[in-house]
């Protein structure tokens, strides 16, 4: 994935104008395990959202292979997200009326996977993420750590090319954070899925193979 001159300005041409991102140029290779880091307000979440098509860049382009994502319509972008990107949000964000099993299988169902394949994938992920016992429970009946693992399972279930995780450990204790990162790393290694985090959690940074540091909307470090 290539990001070319990505800029984002909120409330342009108004007194409240904020330049969240300024001329970002980055390349992500397949199978990366990368963290976008920086202080609050540095633009890491905005950049993650732009990569995932949840926000539009004010200028610049994003290419995945030869496809220009920034040229896609909202509907095409939604379809792209569905097929190629898995999201893990800070606040779990599961669908409350669906059971854990139904939540994990939701995207696969939208993509019309075979029922047998869905069930087998859910069972496989449940073992990896240690959520076998809660598959028939509703999100409101399980702990925050469990919910975040379910969110990860939902994100990776359909085998997307890219996982975007915004502060996935922010609401977890250290034990659950370690467990989650371990599982994401396992999935990254086992299924070659590219994972990009936006986080300033020390533990997440330690686990990452590449760290991109942002400050005032610009990349100041990439190692």
């Amino acid at each position, binding site marked *: 994935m290539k990001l070319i001159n990505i800029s984002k300005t909120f409330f342009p041409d108004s007194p409240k104008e904020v330049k969240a991102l300024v001329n970002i140029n980055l390349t992500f290779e397949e199978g990366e395990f990368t963290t976008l880091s920086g202080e609050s307000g540095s633009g890491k*979440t905005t950049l993650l*959202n732009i990569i995932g098509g*949840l*926000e539009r860049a004010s200028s610049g382009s994003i290419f995945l292979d030869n496809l220009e994502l920034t040229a896609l319509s909202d*509907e095409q972008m*939604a*379809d*792209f*997200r*569905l*097929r190629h*990107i*898995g*999201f893990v*949000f800070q*606040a779990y*964000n*599961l*669908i*409350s*009326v*669906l059971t854990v099993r*139904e939540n994990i299988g*939701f*995207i696969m*169902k*939208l993509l019309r996977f075979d029922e047998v394949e869905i069930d087998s994938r859910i069972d496989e992920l449940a073992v990896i993420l240690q959520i076998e016992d809660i598959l028939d429970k*509703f999100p409101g009946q399980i702990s925050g750590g469990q919910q975040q693992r379910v969110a990860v399972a*939902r*994100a990776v279930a359909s085998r997307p090319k890219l996982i975007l995780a915004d502060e996935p450990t922010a609401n977890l204790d250290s034990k659950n954070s370690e467990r989650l990162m371990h599982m994401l790393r396992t999935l990254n290694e086992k299924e070659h899925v590219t994972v990009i985090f936006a986080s300033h959690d020390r533990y997440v940074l330690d686990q990452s193979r590449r760290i991109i540091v942002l400050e005032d909307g610009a990349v100041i470090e990439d190692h």
Partner: protein
Amino acid sequence: MYKIALDLALKSLMRRKTRTLMVIMMIALSLSGLLFLQGLYDGMVSHMINTTIRSDSGDISLYAKQYRFEKNIDYHIDDPEPIQAYLYQSEEINAYAVRLMQEGLVSTAHKSLGATLRGVTLEDERKFGDFYTFLSQGKFSFGPKNQDALIGFKLAEKLKVTLGSRLIFTAQDANGEINAIAFRISGIVKTGNLTIDEGSVFVSMETMERFLTLPNSATQIALRVKDESQIKSVQDTLQKKFKTLDVLRWDELYPLLIQMREMMNIFNWVSYAIVFAVAALGIFGVILMSILERMREFSIMMAIGTPYRNIRYQIISEAFAMALFGYVFGALLGWGFLLYTASVGIDLRYFEAGLESFGLNAILYADIRYYYFFQAFAAVFFATFLSVLWPLHVLKKIKPIEVIQGKML
């Protein structure tokens, strides 16, 4: 795709039982109220028309020309028997009543009032309009010697007479002489037709013919048709057959009733519109809230790639499923209310005086018509349709990530 949305809609309805039941109940109660109100208004007007037809006009009445304008017995129907014979053999006519009427002065020892003396045959009136059901006190009889009379209850109140009281009726006979005749009150009638209740005294046809020295005569022949939809054609046939007579339908005789029906229709529609607006606002509010409170959930679904059309289909499916159940329960409840009110009525005797001054019965009965249910169906689904438009519009405009991050809503 739509199967998933429908599945999600059903799960959402089933797993949020309180909210679902609340919306269904809201729709059902509003709808039953609408149905009840509509039936009650129609019932009130129907009752007024029905009592007027039964007590006086029939579906059609025949008069000698000019009688209705001058109310003079010079303009009477002479020898009504051939007409009666025709009506008797006609297959379209159910019953008829021959009447001989004269206006005059009815007096007690203390008071005199203008009134109409109506010569009738009780048996004919019974067949014609179940007239005995209007009897509120006394007997449905003119006594063994035809010297008794029935009197409208308002007239009895004004004259301060009761059962057994004596009345003197003074009027001009066919020869232009002023005659007087005395009666004893055997019964008091309450028809709901102000013309009758406020100003009529009923005596036997024989007595009336003798009193007016007008044998074998009538001033009105009222008839009931078998099929109400045939009233106009029967009127045309009778008019062709009896060219020297005025043949008039009940609505031509009582144009005020038609005006009243039109007024009630307007009132009905205004009330219906108000109740509908309240109900629609209620449905709108509850469905809107149920969608807005889940904006975050819908935003998550959109963020992870669920197409907007899927969410739209889910919301519409949920709203219309609730509307359908609400309609079914509301229609059943409303039907129950209407059935009860149509058979038992609503007892408003506490407001009897006020209602009677408008010609309304103190016990109100509802009408039940099938079209109410079609109208209500359209109303509920229209309100539901309106109630999903705004949330869908809002949903289409939101940025899912801003809702998820708590920047919106």
